[in-house]
């Protein structure tokens, strides 16, 4: 993060720095842990997967002459006897952003070697993610109960169900994987693996709090994807 320093090599700022970093006959990403670079490359490929899903949704929704189901009615939820549009989705967004915030602060405390705070915040993040997955399971079972299937639904265009289940399902799968890893890393931090210098994932090198930042990148990406799904699928 921020300003790395390497002896015998002048690090220029801005686009000049980009050119000299790329042509330096050394590692290209100066001051970036290899695991972090790999996570970024993975997230880039994942971005393409989600983009393809959302673009196919745009194509499907745009090319059907049948009326598309109105999301603010389909996803409405009864609260005190009154149907509130998108209530559950708004709560899910709230929970996911909350967990994204705790993750960001956990990364900060990790770099400050504040083991306890980092661990508690990771645990809070994991519980937030678990709540999100639970709410999504509720949302799915409610819609399935109302007769939404990948091939038909009672609200409008038949393509609605297949796009809904594929896009939110793939996102929910990402959240679930993230929750599992968040619990594993909560354990690792509380057990003091980084203070004892236990080896990290896929490597014999010693683990370090940079792993928390790498996990954080993944978690923020899951939140980032939700921003796009919320805008295009639920609000549009």
């Amino acid at each position, binding site marked *: 993060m*921020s300003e790395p320093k390497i002896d015998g090599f002048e690090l220029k700022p801005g686009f000049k720095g980009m050119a000299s970093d790329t042509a330096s006959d050394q590692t290209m990403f100066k001051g970036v842990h290899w695991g972090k670079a790999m996570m970024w490359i993975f997230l880039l490929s994942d971005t393409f997967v989600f983009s393809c899903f959302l673009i*196919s949704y745009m194509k499907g929704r*745009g090319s059907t*002459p049948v009326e598309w189901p109105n999301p603010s009615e389909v996803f409405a939820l009864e609260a005190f006897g009154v149907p509130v*549009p998108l209530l559950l989705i708004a709560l899910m967004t709230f929970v996911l952003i909350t967990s994204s915030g705790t993750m960001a602060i956990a990364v900060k405390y990790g770099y400050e070697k504040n083991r306890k705070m980092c661990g508690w915040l990771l645990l809070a993040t994991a519980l937030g993610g678990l709540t999100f997955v639970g709410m999504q399971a509720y949302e799915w079972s409610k819609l399935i109960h109302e007769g939404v299937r990948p091939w038909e639904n009672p609200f409008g265009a038949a393509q609605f169900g297949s796009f809904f289940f594929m896009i939110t399902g793939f996102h929910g799968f990402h959240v679930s994987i993230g929750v599992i890893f968040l619990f594993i890393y909560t354990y690792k931090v509380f057990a003091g693996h980084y203070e004892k210098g236990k080896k990290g994932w896929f490597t014999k090198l010693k683990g370090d709090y940079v792993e928390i930042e790498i996990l*954080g990148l993944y978690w923020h990406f899951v939140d980032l994807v939700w921003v796009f799904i919320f805008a295009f699928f639920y609000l549009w």
Partner: protein
Amino acid sequence: MEKTNNIEKTDKKEEASTHKIGIYLWIWTLLFVLSFFSYMVDWYQFQGMLRWSLILFFMFLKAGLIMAFFMHLFWERYALVNVLLWPMTAIACFIFLMAAEFQYTLFSRLFYFVVGGGA
């Protein structure tokens, strides 16, 4: 050997310097506020161009804040930032291609299945 030692030293020093907690709390609050606003777009049932432009505006603002500050891209060197952001132009191209495609498909469906073709 001496050189690697120096690198290790600078790495250690670097880890100690983190960002103040205030910046994360600010971004966090902003994300809540922006999410609230984008929910209000649906609540007040804005329609047409106003709805779409507001949705996109809040979406890109939130995505930018998350990437820049939570994912630390604002503080990374341009070598990494550019490797990550330029491929997005390929996605933009794909969106334009498929937008043209769905308009044509819709036209074909209406023309041949609803209108009954040119004959």
